């Protein structure tokens, strides 16, 4: 458990954040730049000293203004992955990786070099200097270095922000593996909703130094009131499903979710694997009668829970299929023509081709745990 409640005045900007996150899994701190995300993890690491409050990780108090405790950075045992990597330019990759491990007590060593090399795919880089690495390689080494220091929590400050799209795609699977295979809680700062939705078990949304909302990506994705905060987020529902079958002839996978089956292109994993699917609102069409002779593979029957009309041409609808929520974005004209309102029975149509590598990912291995958010 990371239990945190801090206040800090930084010039005009006031930070006042409290939250608790579980012992495992990945918690995303999400918000626009300037929302105070980095300040929060800097405070956890001890790089920023709060004016008041407390910070506890796994029952260990790192900071408490009431008792005067303030553990120095180097004794906090937090791994920190900086946006720019910050590899030591005068040391080889190997010495960078081992820098923290050599300084950690032997009894704490749960993660060893071989495991990290395999997990992050960096065995071939050991003899190189940081200047000879690509941006993505640097970031993987930085992550490995932080983990080998045997931290009790891994803090990541927009580790993908400085990378281009191909490099991001290169690293994302490694981050999923970290989340699922290591027993180290991760606090992940990001302003990119796609990363957050793909990686997080839990999201804490920060706005102007305060917690605006907290919950699972599914819960937050459905909250239409958070739309302005989530920014240019392509609205959509997040569905955790499991791999049921793969049809090699047509190269299609069938995923089971609470309310039906979803057919997506490609091989989405081994049978039984958890797969997280993001169904974009604009990819969901609606019909009041079940269509026949249609190319669309995924047709679900469900009900309208809420209709939110927006200024302009569009409306967004919250729908329920079994126990699963979907979002649909259609024109206001269609809503009016079909007479859709809360409680209407509708058929949802989702084209299989609307799924791609951006919308399919391994689901977090740990089910979302309880959270509380205040402030």
């Amino acid at each position, binding site marked *: 458990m990371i239990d945190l409640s801090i206040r800090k005045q930084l010039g005009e900007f006031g930070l006042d954040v409290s939250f608790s996150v579980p012992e495992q899994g990945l918690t995303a701190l999400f918000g626009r730049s300037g929302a105070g995300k980095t300040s929060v993890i800097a405070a956890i*690491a*001890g*790089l920023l000293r709060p004016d008041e409050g407390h910070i506890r990780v796994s029952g260990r108090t790192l900071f408490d203004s009431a008792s005067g405790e303030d553990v*120095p*950075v*180097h*004794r*906090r*045992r*937090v*791994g*920190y992955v*900086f946006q*720019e990597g*910050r590899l*030591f*330019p*005068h040391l080889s990759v190997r010495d960078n990786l081992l*820098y*923290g491990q050599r*300084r*950690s007590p032997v009894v704490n060593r749960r993660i060893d070099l071989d495991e990290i090399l395999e997990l992050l795919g960096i065995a071939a880089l050991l003899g190189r*200097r*940081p*200047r000879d690495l690509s941006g993505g390689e640097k970031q993987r080494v930085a992550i490995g*270095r*932080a983990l080998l*220091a045997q931290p009790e929590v891994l803090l990541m400050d927009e580790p993908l922000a400085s990378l281009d799209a191909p490099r991001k795609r290169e690293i994302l699977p490694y981050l999923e593996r970290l989340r699922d295979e290591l027993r180290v809680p991760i606090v992940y700062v990001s302003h990119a909703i796609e990363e957050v939705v793909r990686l997080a078990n839990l999201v804490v949304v920060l706005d102007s130094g305060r917690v605006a909302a907290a919950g699972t990506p599914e819960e937050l994705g459905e909250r239409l009131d958070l739309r302005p905060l989530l920014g240019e987020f392509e609205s959509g529902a997040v569905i955790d499903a499991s791999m049921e079958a793969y049809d090699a002839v047509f190269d299609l996978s069938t995923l089971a979710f609470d309310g039906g089956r979803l057919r997506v292109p490609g091989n989405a994993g081994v049978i039984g694997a958890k797969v997280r699917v993001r169904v974009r609102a604009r990819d969901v069409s609606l019909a009041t009668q079940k269509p026949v002779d249609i190319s669309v593979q995924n047709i679900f029957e469900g009900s309208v829970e809420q209709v939110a009309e927006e200024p302009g041409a569009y409306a967004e609808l919250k729908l329920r299929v079994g126990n699963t929520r979907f979002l649909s974005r259609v024109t206001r004209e269609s809503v009016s023509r079909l007479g859709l309102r809360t409680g209407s029975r509708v058929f949802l149509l989702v084209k299989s081709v609307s799924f791609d590598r951006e919308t399919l990912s391994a689901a977090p291995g740990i089910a979302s745990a309880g959270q509380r958010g205040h402030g």
Partner: protein
Amino acid sequence: MLTDFELQALWLSLKVALRSVALSLPFALGAAYVLARIRFPGKVLFDGLVHLPLALPPVLVGYLLLLTFGIRGPLGGWLFETFGLRLAFTSLGASIATAVMSFPLMVRSIRLSIESIDSGLESAAATLGASPLDRFFTITLPLMLPGVLSGCVVAFAASLGEFGAVITFVSNIPGETQTLPLAIYSAVQTPDGDAAAARLAALSLVLALSGLMVSEIIARRARMMLGGGPE
């Protein structure tokens, strides 16, 4: 090729300059670190004091050294009573005079190299469990090494050329304090010393130039090593 007199002045100059660098380095490291990294009231004054030898006439610096490190000076008296050490009229005194004069140059070079180190690297080392001292020796010091080396070479070259402070503090004694510039001075002061002076001048020119070239080469090597590539 060189006369005994010239060789003597040359070796003495090298000895004085080397000792001068060794003497000032620890203080220069400290001063540069304080100036680059620590904020405190009166920092402008401290900065000014460090740079003072650049602005003061060297003869005045030599005179102040005589007042301070002389046998009746506060520091000189203590050194003599405690260690039996006398500085005036000795080559060690000459080293102190050149060390003081070249101190600002060395501090400047080291300070720049500290300022160019991303302090984020030290924060990173801290999160990896390195204590402040550990961080200084494993991160800060290695990264500032190019600046330290070039600072040393520049100070060495400046020490080879220092005149006013030396002649005032330790006078002009052949074999003890008569470095190349002092030997040149003596030669010029002698009505028929022009040719001897020209030879000595050529010698110190070669020496100074090689010093500065070595400094540049070291700096370039170090930049390459640290991954910046040549600038």
